[in-house]
């Protein structure tokens, strides 16, 4: 089902935000959500391995870097239209995958999107940006410049 009312870049962005969010934040938002939608699991949460592939230098031959644990779940809302939400997260947290799937389904509903976007996705992204800045600052403080060596390819 193509949903033309959602801008192209929005869903990848919220799926990414949901999968990288702190599970506790999602759980808290779900707990405060009223009324909760009726739903069932099209694919109950399951953990497995995904192969990570990389390219040397970003442009060489693809090689298998190694496997990582991932967890996924798919929910379908029991309402019309029956929206399907997908949650894929790194690690083994089944609840995180479930919550990501549920919020993905809800965000596809135009009547719920604006609220969720404002109250969940933007704060989650802000938290992540802040955490990243903090870490970048901590790492940056110990930065060493090797002034006698040439950086990168000349």
């Amino acid at each position, binding site marked *: *089902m*193509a949903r*033309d009312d959602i801008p*192209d870049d929005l*869903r990848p962005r919220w799926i990414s935000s949901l999968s990288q969010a702190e599970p506790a934040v999602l759980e808290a938002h779900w707990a405060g959500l009223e009324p909760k939608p009726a739903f*069932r699991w*099209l*694919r109950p949460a399951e953990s497995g391995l995904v192969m990570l592939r990389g390219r040397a230098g970003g442009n060489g031959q693809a090689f298998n870097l190694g496997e990582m644990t991932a967890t996924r779940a798919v929910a379908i809302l029991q309402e019309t239209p029956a929206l*399907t939400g997908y949650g894929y997260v790194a690690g083994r947290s089944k609840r995180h995958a479930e919550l990501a799937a549920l919020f993905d389904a809800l965000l596809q509903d135009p009547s719920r999107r604006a609220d969720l976007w404002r109250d969940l996705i933007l704060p989650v992204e802000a938290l992540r940006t802040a955490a990243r800045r903090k870490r970048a600052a901590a790492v940056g403080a110990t930065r060493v410049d090797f002034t006698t060596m040439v950086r990168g390819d000349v």
Partner: protein
Amino acid sequence: MFEHAVVTEPGLADPVQQSQEIFRTVLAALSEPGRVFQLADMAPVGALGVGSAAVAILLALTDGDTPVWLGGKAEALANYLRFHTGSPVVSDPGAAQFTLVKGVNCQLDLFDPGNEDFPDQSATLIVEVDVLAEGGPITLSGPGIPGHRHVTVQGLPADFSEQWSANHAQFPCGVDVIVTNGTSLMGLPRTTSFAHSGR
């Protein structure tokens, strides 16, 4: 714009336990041709338009390494299988390892009978028929059958006996068939001889 296949039915509720149960039932059915087994309440049928035994067998036996042929007109079922099992749905019946067909459309020689070196690599056909019961005009004999067994199968093509004789004669090659109707199933491996007495 992103599109996603419309899948509205869940797969097996308890995949580990149920797929073992389904596998065991299929094994028993193929070991004792002519006996009708039951696979109740395993798979949801919903809007798929196929019996639940047939769907359950596909859910248990197919995965990303088993190409499935569905005959081109089963888009809902194809999406369902791709979603739940990851099986490639192929357009060439000769490339399929599993297939689900309606009885009247059943044409055995379309499918891979394996080869002399690897007869185990032949295709397995799940054939959904209108009526399936023990006792009746069809006489089965062969390995797994003490003497003869009689069954009723309605909804196979008129020339099925001839098709089956040709398949049976290819031994050790040949396709294996699982006949299903709703929640019932019956094994018809290549070793079984099939005779229709009166029509």
